């Protein structure tokens, strides 16, 4: 990173409260706005999110995520009747010309078995390798973002009655 882009990144940090990573392209896939949330000092789990756009004319599939923690999985949050449940998402289809969004209340990458100094702190990044059926593997950094209040995070949540838009 050049001095200029560092300054730009710093400006983003000041204005938006977090830094915006550049898009990452792998094959026909574009990975946008990867981030992880900061965790408590003693946290043993953390989550990360990213949008994956398929610009190609063939479907692809997210098969797996690997990272240097004891257990890493893609999870889906399901909400029904006011009860939340996380479960392994399995393989996720990325339609041709479509996208999947890992976001709060939907899919997340879950890092399990954090210990001690592994807590996610603002200013650091979390590295993980995403494995796609067509595009292959890509290792990306998820900048750690501070938790904001409800306004930033709750916009797309389902209601108790609907409880069906957790994964969209």
């Amino acid at each position, binding site marked *: 990173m050049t001095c200029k882009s560092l300054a730009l990144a710093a400006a983003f940090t000041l204005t938006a409260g977090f830094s915006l990573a550049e898009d990452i392209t792998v094959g026909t896939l574009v990975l946008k706005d990867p981030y992880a949330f900061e965790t408590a000092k003693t946290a043993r789990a953390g*989550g990360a999110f990213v949008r994956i756009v398929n610009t190609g004319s063939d479907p692809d599939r997210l098969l797996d995520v690997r990272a240097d923690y004891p257990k890493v999985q893609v999870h889906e*949050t399901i909400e029904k009747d006011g009860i939340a449940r996380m479960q392994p998402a399995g393989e996720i289809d990325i339609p041709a010309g479509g996208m999947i969004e890992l976001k709060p209340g939907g899919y997340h990458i879950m890092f399990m078995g954090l210990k001690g100094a592994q807590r996610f702190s603002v200013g650091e990044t979390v590295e993980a390798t995403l494995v796609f059926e067509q595009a292959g593997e890509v290792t990306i950094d998820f900048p750690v973002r501070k*938790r904001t209040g*409800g306004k930033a995070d709750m916009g797309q*949540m389902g209601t108790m009655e609907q409880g069906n838009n957790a994964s969209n």
Partner: protein
Amino acid sequence: MTLSRTTIALVGFVALGAAGLATYTILGPRDPASCAQSQVAGATIGGPFTLVDETGRTVTDRDIITKPSLVYFGYTFCPDVCPTDSARNAEALDLLQSRGIDAQALFISIDPERDTVEQVAEFTDLFHPDMIGLTGSSEQVAAVSKTYKTYFAKQETGDEYYLMDHSTFTYLVLPDLGFVDFFRRDTTPETIANTVACFAEQS
């Protein structure tokens, strides 16, 4: 709410001996129920509990609920739903405090097997100084969950990284009236703050 459910709820109030609240509801200067977001069927949610606080001390509801309290049940090994809801509740506290209303939040662990005193203390510190982490024995946690009619269940994975299914409502509990309202996940911090303020200004 249908008329019959309202009637049942009112009968329930009296039958359960919630005479104080019923009297206040009828004779009070304003109806506290008019503050409520949810259509609450009456005094069947909430009540006494015994848990362990962030210092390791055993405490009861009387020790802890000394001001309007947003009560949430979750677990710290939860990277998505619990932190999102806790951040929302923390923001409601900020809004209330900017209006001069003293309130707090409780985060009650439904995963006492992993959630030590230190775990719940550190987790809640991430969100707000006035968010109190509570844990306890599995019996104490089961009892408070039953009292608040919340659901939780362990998904066995055969390792230490198991996941918990759990209710995601936030309950508003007042020192004098007890439980008065609950909020769903999609309730905004502004709505929560306004509701808490409405109740707080009447008591």
